[in-house]
Protein backbone atom coordinates (compact mmCIF):
# COMPACT_ATOMS: atom_id res chain seq x y z
CA UNK A 1 0.00 0.00 0.00
CA UNK A 2 1.25 3.46 -0.86
CA UNK A 3 1.99 6.02 1.82
CA UNK A 4 -1.06 7.93 3.03
CA UNK A 5 -1.73 11.37 1.54
CA UNK A 6 -2.48 12.90 4.91
CA UNK A 7 -1.08 11.81 8.24
CA UNK A 8 -1.84 13.17 11.67
CA UNK A 9 0.62 11.85 14.19
CA UNK A 10 -0.06 12.40 17.88
CA UNK A 11 -1.51 15.80 17.10
CA UNK A 12 -2.62 17.92 20.02
CA UNK A 13 -4.20 21.37 19.75
CA UNK A 14 -4.75 23.60 22.74
CA UNK A 15 -6.33 27.04 22.91
CA UNK A 16 -5.12 28.38 26.24
CA UNK A 17 -6.34 25.84 28.76
CA UNK A 18 -8.89 24.36 26.41
CA UNK A 19 -7.85 21.20 24.62
CA UNK A 20 -9.60 21.15 21.24
CA UNK A 21 -7.86 18.07 19.89
CA UNK A 22 -6.44 15.80 22.55
CA UNK A 23 -4.52 13.18 20.66
CA UNK A 24 -5.12 12.50 17.01
CA UNK A 25 -3.64 9.74 14.90
CA UNK A 26 -5.24 9.56 11.52
CA UNK A 27 -4.15 8.53 8.05
CA UNK A 28 -6.13 9.48 4.97
CA UNK A 29 -5.35 7.85 1.65
CA UNK A 30 -5.40 9.25 -1.83
CA UNK A 31 -8.84 9.24 -3.37
CA UNK A 32 -10.64 8.58 -0.13
CA UNK A 33 -13.80 10.33 0.98
CA UNK A 34 -13.40 10.73 4.72
CA UNK A 35 -16.03 12.32 6.91
CA UNK A 36 -15.14 13.61 10.36
CA UNK A 37 -18.26 13.65 12.45
CA UNK A 38 -19.11 14.59 15.99
CA UNK A 39 -21.12 16.99 18.10
CA UNK A 40 -20.13 20.65 18.12
CA UNK A 41 -16.94 21.33 20.04
CA UNK A 42 -15.57 17.83 19.44
CA UNK A 43 -12.52 19.13 17.57
CA UNK A 44 -13.55 18.21 14.05
CA UNK A 45 -13.34 21.71 12.59
CA UNK A 46 -10.06 22.38 14.41
CA UNK A 47 -8.68 19.22 12.80
CA UNK A 48 -9.67 20.48 9.37
CA UNK A 49 -8.27 23.95 10.02
CA UNK A 50 -4.96 22.44 11.08
CA UNK A 51 -4.84 20.55 7.82
CA UNK A 52 -5.41 23.82 5.94
CA UNK A 53 -2.74 25.54 8.03
CA UNK A 54 -5.16 27.96 9.64
CA UNK A 55 -4.21 26.59 13.05
CA UNK A 56 -0.84 25.23 14.13
CA UNK A 57 -0.81 22.01 16.12
CA UNK A 58 0.48 22.44 19.68
CA UNK A 59 2.14 19.01 19.54
CA UNK A 60 2.63 16.25 17.02
CA UNK A 61 3.09 16.34 13.30
CA UNK A 62 0.87 16.74 10.27
CA UNK A 63 2.21 15.37 6.98
CA UNK A 64 0.92 15.85 3.49
CA UNK A 65 2.36 13.44 0.92
CA UNK A 66 4.96 12.53 3.52
CA UNK A 67 6.12 16.12 3.98
CA UNK A 68 5.91 17.81 7.38
CA UNK A 69 3.38 20.65 7.14
CA UNK A 70 3.29 22.09 10.67
CA UNK A 71 5.04 25.36 9.80
CA UNK A 72 3.90 25.74 6.19
CA UNK A 73 1.75 28.82 5.68
CA UNK A 74 -1.83 28.33 4.50
CA UNK A 75 -1.07 30.12 1.24
CA UNK A 76 1.72 27.69 0.44
CA UNK A 77 -0.39 24.57 0.82
CA UNK A 78 -2.68 23.21 -1.81
CA UNK A 79 -5.52 22.41 0.55
CA UNK A 80 -8.54 24.41 -0.61
CA UNK A 81 -11.41 24.58 1.83
CA UNK A 82 -15.12 24.94 1.24
CA UNK A 83 -16.22 27.07 4.16
CA UNK A 84 -19.28 26.65 6.29
CA UNK A 85 -20.15 30.28 5.52
CA UNK A 86 -18.88 29.69 1.94
CA UNK A 87 -16.75 32.86 2.34
CA UNK A 88 -17.35 33.96 -1.25
CA UNK A 89 -15.96 37.41 -2.04
CA UNK A 90 -18.99 39.72 -2.20
CA UNK A 91 -17.18 42.41 -4.22
CA UNK A 92 -16.33 40.01 -7.05
CA UNK A 93 -18.74 38.41 -9.50
CA UNK A 94 -19.08 34.66 -9.87
CA UNK A 95 -16.34 34.07 -12.43
CA UNK A 96 -13.91 36.39 -10.64
CA UNK A 97 -14.51 34.47 -7.44
CA UNK A 98 -13.67 31.22 -9.15
CA UNK A 99 -10.60 32.74 -10.77
CA UNK A 100 -9.18 33.92 -7.46
CA UNK A 101 -6.98 30.91 -6.76
CA UNK A 102 -5.59 30.96 -10.30
CA UNK A 103 -4.87 34.68 -10.09
CA UNK A 104 -2.88 34.09 -6.91
CA UNK A 105 -0.92 31.43 -8.76
CA UNK A 106 -0.03 33.99 -11.39
CA UNK A 107 -2.03 32.69 -14.35
CA UNK A 108 -2.75 35.32 -16.99
CA UNK A 109 -6.24 36.71 -17.35
CA UNK A 110 -7.43 34.79 -20.43
CA UNK A 111 -6.16 31.43 -19.22
CA UNK A 112 -7.75 31.79 -15.85
CA UNK A 113 -11.10 32.94 -17.19
CA UNK A 114 -11.17 29.96 -19.54
CA UNK A 115 -10.34 27.59 -16.68
CA UNK A 116 -12.89 29.18 -14.37
CA UNK A 117 -15.60 28.93 -17.03
CA UNK A 118 -14.75 25.24 -17.50
CA UNK A 119 -15.47 24.62 -13.84
CA UNK A 120 -18.60 26.72 -13.83
CA UNK A 121 -19.85 24.61 -16.72
CA UNK A 122 -18.94 21.44 -14.95
CA UNK A 123 -21.00 22.55 -11.96
CA UNK A 124 -23.82 23.73 -14.26
CA UNK A 125 -23.72 27.38 -13.25
CA UNK A 126 -21.94 28.88 -16.27
CA UNK A 127 -24.98 31.01 -17.09
CA UNK A 128 -24.50 32.93 -13.84
CA UNK A 129 -20.83 33.72 -14.44
CA UNK A 130 -21.33 37.49 -14.58
CA UNK A 131 -23.74 37.70 -11.66
CA UNK A 132 -22.98 39.16 -8.29
CA UNK A 133 -22.85 36.70 -5.42
CA UNK A 134 -25.81 38.44 -3.78
CA UNK A 135 -27.98 37.53 -6.79
CA UNK A 136 -27.50 33.78 -6.36
CA UNK A 137 -29.56 31.23 -4.45
CA UNK A 138 -28.07 29.11 -1.70
CA UNK A 139 -27.52 26.11 -3.95
CA UNK A 140 -25.88 28.22 -6.64
CA UNK A 141 -23.54 29.83 -4.12
CA UNK A 142 -22.63 26.37 -2.95
CA UNK A 143 -21.59 25.43 -6.47
CA UNK A 144 -19.56 28.63 -6.85
CA UNK A 145 -17.73 27.81 -3.62
CA UNK A 146 -17.00 24.31 -4.92
CA UNK A 147 -15.79 25.61 -8.26
CA UNK A 148 -13.57 28.15 -6.57
CA UNK A 149 -11.97 25.48 -4.40
CA UNK A 150 -11.53 22.96 -7.20
CA UNK A 151 -10.31 25.26 -9.96
CA UNK A 152 -6.67 24.79 -9.03
CA UNK A 153 -7.13 21.02 -9.34
CA UNK A 154 -5.87 20.13 -5.89
CA UNK A 155 -5.12 16.62 -4.63
CA UNK A 156 -7.32 17.16 -1.63
CA UNK A 157 -10.45 19.15 -0.89
CA UNK A 158 -11.50 20.13 2.60
CA UNK A 159 -15.15 20.74 3.34
CA UNK A 160 -16.38 22.31 6.58
CA UNK A 161 -20.11 21.60 7.00
CA UNK A 162 -20.73 23.01 3.53
CA UNK A 163 -24.36 21.92 3.34
CA UNK A 164 -25.50 23.11 6.74
CA UNK A 165 -27.15 26.27 5.39
CA UNK A 166 -29.16 24.52 2.68
CA UNK A 167 -32.77 23.30 2.61
CA UNK A 168 -33.24 19.57 3.11
CA UNK A 169 -34.04 18.78 -0.54
CA UNK A 170 -31.00 20.74 -1.73
CA UNK A 171 -28.79 18.90 0.74
CA UNK A 172 -29.68 15.58 -0.91
CA UNK A 173 -28.98 17.04 -4.35
CA UNK A 174 -25.66 18.52 -3.34
CA UNK A 175 -24.67 15.22 -1.75
CA UNK A 176 -25.14 13.68 -5.17
CA UNK A 177 -23.07 16.41 -6.80
CA UNK A 178 -20.28 15.98 -4.25
CA UNK A 179 -20.16 12.20 -4.46
CA UNK A 180 -20.11 12.29 -8.26
CA UNK A 181 -17.37 14.94 -8.32
CA UNK A 182 -15.26 13.02 -5.87
CA UNK A 183 -15.53 9.81 -7.93
CA UNK A 184 -14.83 11.58 -11.22
CA UNK A 185 -11.88 13.60 -9.99
CA UNK A 186 -10.47 10.81 -7.86
CA UNK A 187 -9.20 13.31 -5.32
CA UNK A 188 -9.36 13.07 -1.55
CA UNK A 189 -12.29 14.71 0.23
CA UNK A 190 -12.13 15.45 3.93
CA UNK A 191 -15.61 16.36 5.01
CA UNK A 192 -16.48 17.74 8.43
CA UNK A 193 -20.08 17.47 9.52
CA UNK A 194 -22.33 16.94 12.49
CA UNK A 195 -24.89 15.25 10.28
CA UNK A 196 -24.92 11.49 10.29
CA UNK A 197 -26.95 11.26 7.11
CA UNK A 198 -24.43 13.38 5.17
CA UNK A 199 -21.47 11.44 6.51
CA UNK A 200 -22.99 8.01 5.94
CA UNK A 201 -24.39 8.87 2.53
CA UNK A 202 -21.10 10.03 1.06
CA UNK A 203 -18.06 8.88 2.97
CA UNK A 204 -15.91 5.81 2.43
CA UNK A 205 -14.72 6.11 6.00
CA UNK A 206 -16.13 8.00 8.93
CA UNK A 207 -14.17 9.34 11.88
CA UNK A 208 -16.26 9.89 14.99
CA UNK A 209 -14.81 12.44 17.40
CA UNK A 210 -15.86 13.50 20.84
CA UNK A 211 -14.16 15.94 23.23
CA UNK A 212 -11.03 16.10 21.12
CA UNK A 213 -10.60 12.35 20.87
CA UNK A 214 -11.29 9.89 18.08
CA UNK A 215 -13.96 7.47 19.23
CA UNK A 216 -14.07 5.28 16.16
CA UNK A 217 -12.82 5.15 12.60
CA UNK A 218 -14.51 2.88 10.14
CA UNK A 219 -16.81 2.40 7.19
CA UNK A 220 -20.29 3.81 7.71
CA UNK A 221 -21.79 0.33 7.89
CA UNK A 222 -19.29 -0.78 10.49
CA UNK A 223 -19.90 2.28 12.63
CA UNK A 224 -23.61 1.86 12.32
CA UNK A 225 -23.70 -1.85 13.16
CA UNK A 226 -20.67 -2.19 15.42
CA UNK A 227 -20.12 0.93 17.48
CA UNK A 228 -17.09 0.57 19.73
CA UNK A 229 -18.32 2.74 22.56
CA UNK A 230 -21.45 3.90 24.25
CA UNK A 231 -20.82 7.39 22.86
CA UNK A 232 -20.80 6.17 19.27
CA UNK A 233 -23.79 3.93 19.85
CA UNK A 234 -25.77 6.86 21.21
CA UNK A 235 -24.52 9.39 18.69
CA UNK A 236 -25.13 7.23 15.66
CA UNK A 237 -28.52 6.11 14.59
CA UNK A 238 -31.37 4.95 16.67
CA UNK A 239 -29.72 2.49 18.97
CA UNK A 240 -31.06 0.81 22.06
CA UNK A 241 -28.42 0.21 24.69
CA UNK A 242 -29.13 -2.21 27.51
CA UNK A 243 -26.65 -2.83 30.27
CA UNK A 244 -26.56 -5.88 32.49
CA UNK A 245 -24.49 -8.63 34.09
CA UNK A 246 -23.44 -11.79 32.26
CA UNK A 247 -25.52 -14.64 33.64
CA UNK A 248 -24.66 -17.44 31.29
CA UNK A 249 -21.95 -18.10 28.72
CA UNK A 250 -22.13 -20.91 26.24
CA UNK A 251 -20.19 -21.58 23.04
CA UNK A 252 -22.33 -19.45 20.78
CA UNK A 253 -24.37 -17.27 23.11
CA UNK A 254 -24.09 -14.75 25.89
CA UNK A 255 -27.01 -14.19 28.24
CA UNK A 256 -27.35 -10.98 30.14
CA UNK A 257 -29.50 -10.25 33.17
CA UNK A 258 -30.80 -6.73 32.81
CA UNK A 259 -33.58 -4.53 34.16
CA UNK A 260 -35.85 -5.77 31.42
CA UNK A 261 -35.21 -9.48 31.77
CA UNK A 262 -32.71 -11.90 30.39
CA UNK A 263 -31.42 -11.05 26.96
CA UNK A 264 -29.41 -13.21 24.61
CA UNK A 265 -26.78 -12.29 22.05
CA UNK A 266 -24.56 -14.26 19.72
CA UNK A 267 -21.12 -14.47 21.22
CA UNK A 268 -18.39 -12.94 19.09
CA UNK A 269 -15.26 -15.07 18.92
CA UNK A 270 -13.04 -12.44 20.45
CA UNK A 271 -15.31 -11.58 23.35
CA UNK A 272 -13.50 -12.03 26.63
CA UNK A 273 -16.08 -12.00 29.38
CA UNK A 274 -16.68 -13.99 32.51
CA UNK A 275 -19.84 -14.67 34.44
CA UNK A 276 -20.87 -11.56 36.37
CA UNK A 277 -19.07 -9.06 34.10
CA UNK A 278 -21.08 -6.03 33.13
CA UNK A 279 -21.71 -5.68 29.40
CA UNK A 280 -23.77 -3.43 27.15
CA UNK A 281 -25.91 -4.83 24.36
CA UNK A 282 -26.68 -2.56 21.43
CA UNK A 283 -29.74 -3.26 19.33
CA UNK A 284 -30.50 -1.00 16.44
CA UNK A 285 -34.07 0.29 16.34
CA UNK A 286 -34.51 -1.04 12.82
CA UNK A 287 -34.03 -4.73 13.70
CA UNK A 288 -36.84 -4.68 16.24
CA UNK A 289 -40.07 -6.55 15.58
CA UNK A 290 -43.25 -5.29 17.18
CA UNK A 291 -46.39 -7.34 17.73
CA UNK A 292 -49.62 -7.43 19.75
CA UNK A 293 -49.33 -11.06 20.71
CA UNK A 294 -46.35 -12.53 22.47
CA UNK A 295 -44.10 -14.03 19.81
CA UNK A 296 -42.39 -17.37 20.33
CA UNK A 297 -38.80 -16.27 19.95
CA UNK A 298 -35.79 -15.12 21.92
CA UNK A 299 -35.37 -11.61 23.38
CA UNK A 300 -39.00 -10.77 23.96
CA UNK A 301 -39.76 -7.73 26.03
CA UNK A 302 -43.20 -6.48 26.94
CA UNK A 303 -43.53 -2.71 26.62
CA UNK A 304 -45.96 0.11 26.83
CA UNK A 305 -46.22 2.45 23.87
CA UNK A 306 -45.35 6.05 24.72
CA UNK A 307 -45.34 7.83 21.39
CA UNK A 308 -44.67 7.43 17.71
CA UNK A 309 -42.72 9.53 15.27
CA UNK A 310 -43.80 9.37 11.69
CA UNK A 311 -41.25 10.29 9.02
CA UNK A 312 -42.58 9.05 5.73
CA UNK A 313 -42.17 5.37 5.01
CA UNK A 314 -40.80 4.48 8.43
CA UNK A 315 -42.24 5.03 11.88
CA UNK A 316 -40.27 5.14 15.09
CA UNK A 317 -42.06 3.88 18.18
CA UNK A 318 -40.93 4.93 21.61
CA UNK A 319 -41.76 2.33 24.21
CA UNK A 320 -41.26 1.88 27.92
CA UNK A 321 -39.97 -1.55 28.84
CA UNK A 322 -39.69 -0.98 32.56
CA UNK A 323 -39.26 1.89 34.96
CA UNK A 324 -36.98 4.37 33.19
CA UNK A 325 -35.98 1.99 30.38
CA UNK A 326 -37.00 3.36 27.04
CA UNK A 327 -36.63 1.38 23.84
CA UNK A 328 -37.01 2.50 20.25
CA UNK A 329 -38.29 0.46 17.37
CA UNK A 330 -38.29 1.52 13.77
CA UNK A 331 -40.81 -0.25 11.58
CA UNK A 332 -42.23 0.13 8.12
CA UNK A 333 -45.31 2.23 7.70
CA UNK A 334 -47.24 -0.70 6.17
CA UNK A 335 -46.52 -2.87 9.25
CA UNK A 336 -47.88 -0.38 11.70
CA UNK A 337 -51.46 -1.01 10.66
CA UNK A 338 -51.23 -4.55 12.00
CA UNK A 339 -50.75 -3.44 15.59
CA UNK A 340 -52.53 -1.38 18.19
CA UNK A 341 -50.91 2.02 18.33
CA UNK A 342 -53.07 3.77 20.88
CA UNK A 343 -50.94 5.39 23.57
CA UNK A 344 -50.36 3.03 26.46
CA UNK A 345 -50.93 -0.07 24.29
CA UNK A 346 -49.18 -3.20 25.48
CA UNK A 347 -46.83 -4.42 22.76
CA UNK A 348 -44.15 -7.04 22.49
CA UNK A 349 -40.70 -6.18 21.17
CA UNK A 350 -38.42 -8.88 19.98
CA UNK A 351 -35.16 -9.16 18.16
CA UNK A 352 -32.90 -11.94 16.99
CA UNK A 353 -29.78 -12.59 19.05
CA UNK A 354 -27.68 -12.44 15.88
CA UNK A 355 -28.51 -8.75 15.54
CA UNK A 356 -27.23 -7.80 18.95
CA UNK A 357 -23.92 -5.97 19.02
CA UNK A 358 -21.91 -6.17 22.22
CA UNK A 359 -19.98 -3.03 23.14
CA UNK A 360 -16.32 -3.69 23.87
CA UNK A 361 -15.64 -3.32 27.56
CA UNK A 362 -14.40 0.20 28.27
CA UNK A 363 -10.65 0.42 28.30
CA UNK A 364 -8.76 2.59 30.68
CA UNK A 365 -7.31 5.57 28.87
Amino acid at each position, binding site marked *: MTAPLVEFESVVKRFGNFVAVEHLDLAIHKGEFVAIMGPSGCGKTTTLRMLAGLEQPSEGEIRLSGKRMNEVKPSERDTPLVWQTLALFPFLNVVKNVEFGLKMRGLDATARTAKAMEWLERLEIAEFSQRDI*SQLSGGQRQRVALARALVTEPEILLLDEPLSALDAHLVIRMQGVLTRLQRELGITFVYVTHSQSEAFAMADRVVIMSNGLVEQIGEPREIYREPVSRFVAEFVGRNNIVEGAVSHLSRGKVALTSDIGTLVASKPAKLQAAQGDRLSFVVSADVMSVSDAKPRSENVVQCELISEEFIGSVVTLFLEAGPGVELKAQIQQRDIEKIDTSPGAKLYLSWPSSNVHILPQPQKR
Partner: protein
Amino acid sequence: MNADRSIAIFLRIYIGVVFCFVFAPIVASFVFSFNTDRFPTIPLGGFTLHWYETILSDPDVWDALRVSLITSVTVSVISTFIGFCAAYTDFRYKFFGKNAYLALALLPPTIPLVIMGLAMLAWLSQIGMSGYIHSIIIAHVVMCTPFAMAIIRIRLAQMDPSLEAAAWNLGASEWRAMSNVIVPFALPAIISAMCLTAAVSFDEFAVAWFVSGLNKSIPVIILEILQGQVDPQINAIGTFVFIVSMTLVIVAQVLLMTRTKKEAPA
Protein backbone atom coordinates in the same frame (compact mmCIF):
# COMPACT_ATOMS: atom_id res chain seq x y z
CA MET B 1 -56.72 55.86 16.71
CA ASN B 2 -57.37 59.59 16.58
CA ALA B 3 -54.77 60.24 19.26
CA ASP B 4 -52.22 58.24 17.27
CA ARG B 5 -52.98 60.32 14.22
CA SER B 6 -52.57 63.63 15.99
CA ILE B 7 -49.31 62.46 17.57
CA ALA B 8 -48.06 61.50 14.12
CA ILE B 9 -48.97 64.91 12.73
CA PHE B 10 -47.39 66.65 15.69
CA LEU B 11 -44.16 64.68 15.23
CA ARG B 12 -44.01 65.59 11.56
CA ILE B 13 -44.41 69.26 12.36
CA TYR B 14 -41.80 68.94 15.05
CA ILE B 15 -39.28 67.46 12.61
CA GLY B 16 -40.08 70.23 10.12
CA VAL B 17 -39.39 72.84 12.79
CA VAL B 18 -36.11 71.22 13.74
CA PHE B 19 -34.96 71.18 10.13
CA CYS B 20 -35.96 74.85 9.73
CA PHE B 21 -34.01 75.74 12.81
CA VAL B 22 -30.91 73.93 11.53
CA PHE B 23 -31.03 75.06 7.93
CA ALA B 24 -32.55 78.57 8.10
CA PRO B 25 -29.24 80.31 8.84
CA ILE B 26 -27.52 78.46 6.00
CA VAL B 27 -30.31 79.22 3.56
CA ALA B 28 -30.29 82.86 4.71
CA SER B 29 -26.55 83.08 4.17
CA PHE B 30 -26.99 81.54 0.72
CA VAL B 31 -29.76 83.96 -0.23
CA PHE B 32 -27.98 87.06 1.05
CA SER B 33 -24.81 86.12 -0.82
CA PHE B 34 -26.67 87.13 -4.02
CA ASN B 35 -28.23 90.26 -2.54
CA THR B 36 -27.11 93.73 -3.65
CA ASP B 37 -27.64 95.27 -0.22
CA ARG B 38 -24.64 95.46 2.03
CA PHE B 39 -26.60 94.48 5.13
CA PRO B 40 -28.94 91.54 5.44
CA THR B 41 -32.32 93.19 5.44
CA ILE B 42 -35.72 92.24 4.12
CA PRO B 43 -37.08 93.12 1.59
CA LEU B 44 -34.17 91.97 -0.52
CA GLY B 45 -32.43 94.28 -2.96
CA GLY B 46 -31.48 93.11 -6.48
CA PHE B 47 -29.60 89.98 -7.59
CA THR B 48 -25.82 90.29 -7.92
CA LEU B 49 -22.69 88.20 -8.22
CA HIS B 50 -20.68 91.12 -6.94
CA TRP B 51 -19.74 89.53 -3.64
CA TYR B 52 -18.48 86.42 -5.35
CA GLU B 53 -16.41 88.59 -7.69
CA THR B 54 -14.94 90.45 -4.72
CA ILE B 55 -14.02 87.19 -3.02
CA LEU B 56 -12.50 85.71 -6.15
CA SER B 57 -10.41 88.79 -6.81
CA ASP B 58 -8.90 88.70 -3.34
CA PRO B 59 -5.48 87.04 -3.52
CA ASP B 60 -5.65 86.22 0.21
CA VAL B 61 -8.69 84.07 -0.43
CA TRP B 62 -6.88 82.21 -3.20
CA ASP B 63 -3.94 81.60 -0.87
CA ALA B 64 -6.29 80.36 1.80
CA LEU B 65 -8.02 78.09 -0.70
CA ARG B 66 -4.66 76.65 -1.72
CA VAL B 67 -3.74 76.03 1.91
CA SER B 68 -7.11 74.47 2.64
CA LEU B 69 -7.01 72.20 -0.41
CA ILE B 70 -3.48 71.00 0.23
CA THR B 71 -4.32 70.42 3.86
CA SER B 72 -7.60 68.65 3.43
CA VAL B 73 -6.40 66.37 0.62
CA THR B 74 -3.23 65.41 2.47
CA VAL B 75 -5.07 64.99 5.74
CA SER B 76 -7.73 62.80 4.15
CA VAL B 77 -5.11 60.46 2.68
CA ILE B 78 -2.93 60.22 5.78
CA SER B 79 -5.71 59.94 8.35
CA THR B 80 -7.63 57.40 6.27
CA PHE B 81 -4.48 55.31 5.94
CA ILE B 82 -3.78 55.42 9.68
CA GLY B 83 -7.47 54.92 10.45
CA PHE B 84 -7.56 51.87 8.19
CA CYS B 85 -4.51 50.37 9.90
CA ALA B 86 -6.02 50.97 13.33
CA ALA B 87 -9.38 49.49 12.30
CA TYR B 88 -7.69 46.45 10.76
CA THR B 89 -5.66 45.90 13.92
CA ASP B 90 -8.91 45.84 15.83
CA PHE B 91 -10.53 43.47 13.31
CA ARG B 92 -7.71 40.99 13.05
CA TYR B 93 -5.92 40.78 16.39
CA LYS B 94 -6.76 40.06 19.98
CA PHE B 95 -4.21 41.45 22.38
CA PHE B 96 -3.80 42.58 25.95
CA GLY B 97 -5.04 46.14 26.46
CA LYS B 98 -7.10 46.17 23.27
CA ASN B 99 -9.95 48.09 24.88
CA ALA B 100 -7.55 50.74 26.15
CA TYR B 101 -6.04 50.91 22.66
CA LEU B 102 -9.46 51.45 21.10
CA ALA B 103 -10.47 54.05 23.66
CA LEU B 104 -7.24 55.98 23.09
CA ALA B 105 -7.56 55.75 19.33
CA LEU B 106 -11.11 57.12 19.40
CA LEU B 107 -10.37 59.82 22.00
CA PRO B 108 -9.28 62.93 20.05
CA PRO B 109 -12.77 64.12 18.92
CA THR B 110 -13.83 64.34 22.55
CA ILE B 111 -11.15 66.93 23.35
CA PRO B 112 -12.45 70.51 23.10
CA LEU B 113 -11.02 72.10 19.98
CA VAL B 114 -9.57 75.10 21.79
CA ILE B 115 -7.68 72.82 24.17
CA MET B 116 -6.55 70.71 21.25
CA GLY B 117 -5.42 73.80 19.33
CA LEU B 118 -3.51 75.19 22.28
CA ALA B 119 -1.88 71.86 23.04
CA MET B 120 -0.93 71.45 19.40
CA LEU B 121 0.50 74.95 19.27
CA ALA B 122 2.53 74.38 22.45
CA TRP B 123 3.81 71.02 21.26
CA LEU B 124 4.54 71.97 17.67
CA SER B 125 6.36 75.17 18.59
CA GLN B 126 8.33 73.20 21.15
CA ILE B 127 9.69 71.00 18.37
CA GLY B 128 9.94 73.92 15.94
CA MET B 129 7.18 72.81 13.60
CA SER B 130 4.57 75.47 14.24
CA GLY B 131 3.38 77.93 11.61
CA TYR B 132 3.64 75.80 8.48
CA ILE B 133 1.11 74.07 6.30
CA HIS B 134 2.35 70.77 7.66
CA SER B 135 1.57 72.02 11.17
CA ILE B 136 -2.09 72.18 10.21
CA ILE B 137 -1.78 68.80 8.55
CA ILE B 138 -0.30 67.16 11.63
CA ALA B 139 -2.95 68.65 13.89
CA HIS B 140 -5.79 67.72 11.54
CA VAL B 141 -4.55 64.16 11.09
CA VAL B 142 -4.74 63.73 14.85
CA MET B 143 -8.30 65.01 14.79
CA CYS B 144 -9.52 63.17 11.72
CA THR B 145 -7.99 59.71 12.13
CA PRO B 146 -10.59 58.57 14.70
CA PHE B 147 -13.39 59.36 12.23
CA ALA B 148 -11.70 57.37 9.50
CA MET B 149 -11.07 54.51 11.89
CA ALA B 150 -14.67 54.46 13.10
CA ILE B 151 -16.09 54.34 9.58
CA ILE B 152 -13.73 51.61 8.37
CA ARG B 153 -14.20 49.63 11.55
CA ILE B 154 -17.94 49.46 10.99
CA ARG B 155 -17.34 48.17 7.48
CA LEU B 156 -14.85 45.53 8.59
CA ALA B 157 -17.27 44.39 11.27
CA GLN B 158 -19.69 43.45 8.45
CA MET B 159 -17.08 41.20 6.89
CA ASP B 160 -17.23 37.43 7.29
CA PRO B 161 -14.01 36.77 9.23
CA SER B 162 -13.34 33.71 7.09
CA LEU B 163 -13.01 35.87 3.96
CA GLU B 164 -9.40 36.73 4.65
CA ALA B 165 -8.54 33.17 5.63
CA ALA B 166 -10.31 32.02 2.46
CA ALA B 167 -7.93 34.17 0.45
CA TRP B 168 -4.90 32.63 2.17
CA ASN B 169 -6.42 29.23 1.62
CA LEU B 170 -6.58 29.96 -2.11
CA GLY B 171 -2.90 30.84 -2.22
CA ALA B 172 -2.85 34.54 -1.36
CA SER B 173 0.00 35.74 0.84
CA GLU B 174 -0.97 38.03 3.70
CA TRP B 175 -0.15 41.10 1.62
CA ARG B 176 -2.11 39.91 -1.37
CA ALA B 177 -5.05 38.98 0.82
CA MET B 178 -4.90 42.54 2.12
CA SER B 179 -4.82 44.13 -1.33
CA ASN B 180 -7.18 41.66 -3.02
CA VAL B 181 -9.74 41.08 -0.31
CA ILE B 182 -9.61 43.41 2.68
CA VAL B 183 -9.08 46.65 0.78
CA PRO B 184 -11.69 45.94 -1.95
CA PHE B 185 -14.18 44.92 0.71
CA ALA B 186 -13.55 48.06 2.74
CA LEU B 187 -13.24 50.32 -0.32
CA PRO B 188 -16.61 52.11 0.00
CA ALA B 189 -15.77 52.88 3.63
CA ILE B 190 -12.25 53.96 2.67
CA ILE B 191 -13.51 56.45 0.08
CA SER B 192 -16.22 57.53 2.46
CA ALA B 193 -13.64 58.09 5.20
CA MET B 194 -11.51 60.12 2.81
CA CYS B 195 -14.45 62.39 1.95
CA LEU B 196 -15.43 62.83 5.56
CA THR B 197 -11.94 63.57 6.84
CA ALA B 198 -11.41 65.99 3.95
CA ALA B 199 -14.62 67.75 4.95
CA VAL B 200 -13.66 67.89 8.63
CA SER B 201 -10.23 69.29 7.79
CA PHE B 202 -11.62 71.76 5.25
CA ASP B 203 -14.05 73.20 7.79
CA GLU B 204 -11.97 73.15 10.89
CA PHE B 205 -11.16 76.56 12.30
CA ALA B 206 -9.95 76.56 15.90
CA VAL B 207 -6.95 74.28 15.62
CA ALA B 208 -5.96 75.69 12.22
CA TRP B 209 -6.11 79.20 13.64
CA PHE B 210 -3.75 78.28 16.46
CA VAL B 211 -1.10 76.45 14.50
CA SER B 212 -1.28 77.91 10.99
CA GLY B 213 0.85 81.03 11.47
CA LEU B 214 0.85 82.86 8.12
CA ASN B 215 -0.62 79.93 6.21
CA LYS B 216 -4.26 80.82 6.66
CA SER B 217 -6.88 78.27 5.72
CA ILE B 218 -10.35 79.16 4.48
CA PRO B 219 -12.09 79.21 7.87
CA VAL B 220 -9.29 81.39 9.23
CA ILE B 221 -9.64 83.88 6.35
CA ILE B 222 -13.39 83.99 6.94
CA LEU B 223 -12.77 85.19 10.46
CA GLU B 224 -10.36 87.80 9.17
CA ILE B 225 -12.80 89.15 6.63
CA LEU B 226 -15.44 89.19 9.33
CA GLN B 227 -13.18 91.15 11.64
CA GLY B 228 -12.37 93.68 8.90
CA GLN B 229 -15.76 94.46 7.45
CA VAL B 230 -19.17 92.90 7.63
CA ASP B 231 -20.56 92.47 4.16
CA PRO B 232 -22.07 89.64 2.08
CA GLN B 233 -18.60 88.46 1.05
CA ILE B 234 -18.90 86.31 4.16
CA ASN B 235 -22.13 84.84 2.86
CA ALA B 236 -20.52 84.12 -0.50
CA ILE B 237 -17.52 82.34 0.95
CA GLY B 238 -19.72 80.62 3.53
CA THR B 239 -21.92 79.24 0.77
CA PHE B 240 -18.86 77.94 -1.02
CA VAL B 241 -17.54 76.19 2.10
CA PHE B 242 -20.95 74.75 2.84
CA ILE B 243 -21.30 73.31 -0.66
CA VAL B 244 -17.84 71.72 -0.57
CA SER B 245 -18.39 70.16 2.84
CA MET B 246 -21.91 68.97 2.15
CA THR B 247 -20.86 67.40 -1.14
CA LEU B 248 -18.11 65.46 0.59
CA VAL B 249 -20.38 64.35 3.43
CA ILE B 250 -23.20 63.34 1.11
CA VAL B 251 -20.85 61.33 -1.10
CA ALA B 252 -19.54 59.62 2.02
CA GLN B 253 -23.05 58.79 3.22
CA VAL B 254 -24.31 57.57 -0.14
CA LEU B 255 -21.31 55.29 -0.56
CA LEU B 256 -21.84 53.67 2.81
CA MET B 257 -25.56 53.21 2.26
CA THR B 258 -25.63 51.78 -1.24
CA ARG B 259 -22.96 49.23 -0.45
CA THR B 260 -24.69 47.95 2.65
CA LYS B 261 -28.01 47.61 0.83
CA LYS B 262 -26.54 45.73 -2.08
CA GLU B 263 -24.98 43.12 0.15
CA ALA B 264 -28.06 42.48 2.22
CA PRO B 265 -28.81 38.77 1.93
CA ALA B 266 -31.16 37.87 -0.90
